[in-house]
């Protein structure tokens, strides 16, 4: 999953690759740089101008902008198709609440995908986190469990997710098992195995009232707790990704792991942290879902992983790593949520909704491929539309 242009220059750097390269090219006496410079000079003095241009270019070029546009079009479409139903504040609030745990998991998934990895286990770790949380609460007060019991239960749920994620990260980073396989195994083992073993196959329906009534149904200053928590996680995740060393290393590893390693970055450790983070946030998603649904719904999250990955991919994150943003993932999730809810509101058969999500995923990954070709080939905006002939990667 590395960039071809990096594979081309293998890290081993064999003893002298161009065998007969001795006299080639002559010896440029290397005087002053020639007048016909191919590269434009940097102008530190006019930095602010460059900054303005960069900003403009970034807005126009960013995949977030186009996705936001698509989202607006989608909202307008559904508003016109279902007047008075779709474009209401309460509906947006409901969508936000429905997508709360998906958003929390999308934050972790964004970090994972940026490293050129993938985490299929998110929905299963959500279930497991919820089960572990509720298991403790059931034995410590049941419906009337105290906040202390809920807090301890939640810590157990979070710790379970984080530990499982860290174990997956260890297998990916140290044992070099492909993340697809590791997290697929995690998906099956946690969601279909361990969760069923603990619950005996029947959902826990005893959830602490305090949890359901506050986190699940309550609001703070008129905003549902579900939205407050999930948005807060997204904002913190976005800030960490954009402004800290942790985020920078995440991009660096996804972009060129070998370069990151040679730059002294602890690549393996960082990967383990990221998979642990994804597991932790899945555990948090489990607590949120538990509060929101009022049961462990062990069979209800089998496709969460695909929904989350679709959202992140739609948001412009490259499945080959190194490119993407939290804002993009957020808008991507908003897009798929609006699409699903909109289809329900205008009365489209629910099976078509699954088809729509599948189509969106394929479209998102195809767009990613186009962008990559465009960048690699550098032959203009539409180069990637003709795969193979014009869109070749630069050697």
């Amino acid at each position: 999953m590395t960039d071809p242009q990096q594979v081309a220059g293998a890290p081993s750097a064999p003893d002298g690759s161009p065998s007969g390269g001795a006299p080639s090219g002559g010896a440029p006496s290397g005087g002053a740089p020639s007048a016909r410079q191919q590269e434009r000079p940097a102008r530190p003095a006019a930095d602010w101008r460059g900054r303005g241009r960069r900003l403009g270019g970034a807005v126009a070029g960013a995949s977030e902008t186009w996705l936001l546009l698509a989202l607006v079009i989608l909202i307008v479409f559904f508003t016109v198709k279902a007047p008075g139903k779709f474009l209401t504040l309460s509906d947006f609030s409901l969508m936000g609440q429905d997508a709360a745990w998906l958003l929390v998991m999308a934050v972790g998934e964004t970090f994972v995908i940026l490293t050129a990895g993938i985490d299929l286990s998110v929905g299963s770790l959500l279930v497991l986190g919820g089960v572990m949380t509720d298991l403790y609460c059931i034995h410590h007060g049941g419906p009337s469990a105290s906040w202390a019991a809920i807090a301890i239960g939640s810590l157990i749920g979070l710790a379970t997710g984080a530990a499982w994620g860290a174990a997956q990260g260890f297998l990916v980073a140290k044992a070099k098992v492909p993340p697809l396989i590791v997290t697929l195994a995690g998906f099956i083992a946690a969601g279909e195995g361990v969760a069923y073993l603990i619950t005996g196959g029947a959902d826990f329906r005893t959830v602490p009232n305090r949890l359901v009534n506050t986190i699940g149904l309550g609001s703070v200053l008129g905003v549902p707790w579900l939205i407050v928590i999930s948005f807060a996680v997204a904002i913190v995740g976005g800030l960490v990704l954009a402004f800290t060393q942790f985020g920078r290393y995440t991009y660096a590893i996804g972009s060129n792991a070998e370069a990151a390693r040679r730059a002294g970055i602890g690549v393996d450790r960082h990967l383990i942290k990221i998979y642990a983070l994804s597991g932790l946030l899945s555990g948090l998603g489990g607590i949120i879902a538990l509060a929101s649904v009022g049961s462990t719904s062990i069979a209800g999250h089998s496709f969460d992983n695909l929904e989350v990955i679709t959202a992140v991919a739609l948001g412009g994150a490259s499945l080959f790593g190194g490119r993407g943003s939290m804002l993009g993932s957020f808008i991507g999730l908003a897009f798929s949520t609006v699409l699903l809810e909109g289809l329900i509101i205008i009365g489209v058969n629910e099976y078509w909704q699954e088809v729509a999500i599948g189509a969106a995923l394929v479209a998102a990954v195809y767009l990613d491929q186009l962008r990559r070709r465009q960048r690699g080939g550098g032959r203009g905006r539409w180069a990637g539309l003709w795969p193979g002939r014009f869109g070749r990667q630069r050697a």
Partner: protein
Amino acid sequence: MTEPVLEARRLTKHYGHVLALDEADFNAYPGEVVALIGDNGAGKSTLVKTLVGAIRPDQGEILVDGAPVHLASPLDARGYGIEAVYQDLALAPDLDSAANLFLGRELYVVPFVRVLNRRAMRQRAITAFAELGIELPDVGTPVGMLSGGQRQSVAVARAVAFASRIIFMDEPTAALGVVQRGRVLDVIRRVRDRGVSVVLVSHNMPEVLAVADRVEVLRMGRRVATYTAAQTSVEELVGAMTGALELTNGGHPQ
């Protein structure tokens, strides 16, 4: 002669049954450009990797300013002011050139929580590129969108910005056009003039003679000759590399 800034003494390295380095010696003196040449398989890359801490020799000593050192990793080597420009450049194409310049050595606004100081890194990147006469359209452009020559410049600038003693450059001009090649050689001279030694690994003999002060020749895992660049010729160097020339005159270490 002054003390070498970096010295290798009788380095030996086996890969299985292959003897990559056979008691190889190497010297680099302060403020010089020394070319390391040799035919394919002569052990150049192994020697370089050993001296930048990427691999550990089976036997032998490495001395920095005359004192024996132990280089367990490239980080150790960096600690001694030893930097390298790899043949594949080792850049992250999705990060911009400022981010690549500071990769692994970021500057922070709030060191405790590792919040990046992007503005400072940007400014210092602009300064670093300007000092070397390297021209980039914008330090905010992802490196993957730069030309081959520009990427090369970023990799070189990164090494130069942090090297206080010596820089290894493995075939830095192999993938470049004529103009860019001339520029890299300029940069090499400029680095030397700042008092940092440069080890140039190259196959291009005219280039070696144009830029190097001294030449050390490796053959079959050992140093077989050293020359003063001004007093040798392409024929002599090729002869030493291939073993066609039996070495007596220039063949002893200075």
